């Protein structure tokens, strides 16, 4: 089983995916803002495609090293969850978000994301 997900090594944001313990995990670091929005969208869409192709029960999204995310990038995750929610129950996977509780945006934005799709998202601090 191989993962088709390009590694992103930009100066502003990095993203790297891997398969581990039956899950697809993707780790983000740096800043997600207007400069990196398009790259973030490509990565998240591909994570979704791969999670469905590999029939993953869970995707782990690691934000612990992500310093900041603007609302345009946040909306990418809202759209991802909306798309996931639209799938039939047997095609859905869960998303576990690993967060850094020391960052206000993570405490607030991820709580809002969790409320948006309470049955699909768990936040780990």
């Amino acid at each position, binding site marked *: 089983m191989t993962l088709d997900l390009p590694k992103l090594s930009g100066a*502003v944001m990095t993203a790297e995916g891997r398969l581990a313990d039956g899950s697809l995990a993707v780790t983000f670091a740096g*800043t997600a*803002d*207007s*400069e990196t929005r398009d790259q973030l969208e490509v990565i998240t869409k591909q994570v979704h495609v791969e999670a469905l192709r590999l029939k993953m029960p869970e995707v782990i999204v690691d934000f612990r090293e992500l310093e*900041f995310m*603007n*609302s*345009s990038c*946040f*909306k990418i995750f*809202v*759209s991802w*969850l*909306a798309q996931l929610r639209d799938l039939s129950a047997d095609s859905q996977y869960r998303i576990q978000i690993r967060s850094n509780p020391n*960052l*206000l*945006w993570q405490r*607030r*934005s991820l709580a*809002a994301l969790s*409320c*948006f799709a309470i049955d699909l998202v768990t936040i780990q601090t």
Partner: protein
Amino acid sequence: MEHPYFQVSFRPNVRLVSTVRRFTEEFYQRMLGDHEISEKVALATHELLENAVAYASDDETGVRVELADDQLVVKTWNRTSPERLESLKSAIDEMNSAADADAYYQVMMKKTAYRTDGSGLGLARIRAEAEMAITYEVTTDRVCIQARTVVAPRSKEVAT
């Protein structure tokens, strides 16, 4: 040092927004010694400034962050089109008419989830996540958006 503030105006450039956000956070962390307030004001600065940069119709946009009495206020300004002015006023009026900031944020998340242009979430995010009140002032084609929050007396003592 009783009313610490800073003000920056620059040619609209989205790459500078994160730079200003980091400066804002560090400036108010040093001035107020309150990490949470500093992060809130940095978040508001980023979102407001990105909007100002995105919709500026000439070669200048600006931001001023100031501590006045018991309030910390972020102001951004730019010139823009009449259509954008109307849409901004309408968006802020609609948002402020909703009593519950978190519930309105969820409504906006649902409403914009399938939108492809912009996020449409920035103002609701400031109100819900940074717990800041948002108002606007319009003078002909110039708009000034303000986000404000109350600063605890303990925070102000560090600054003076």
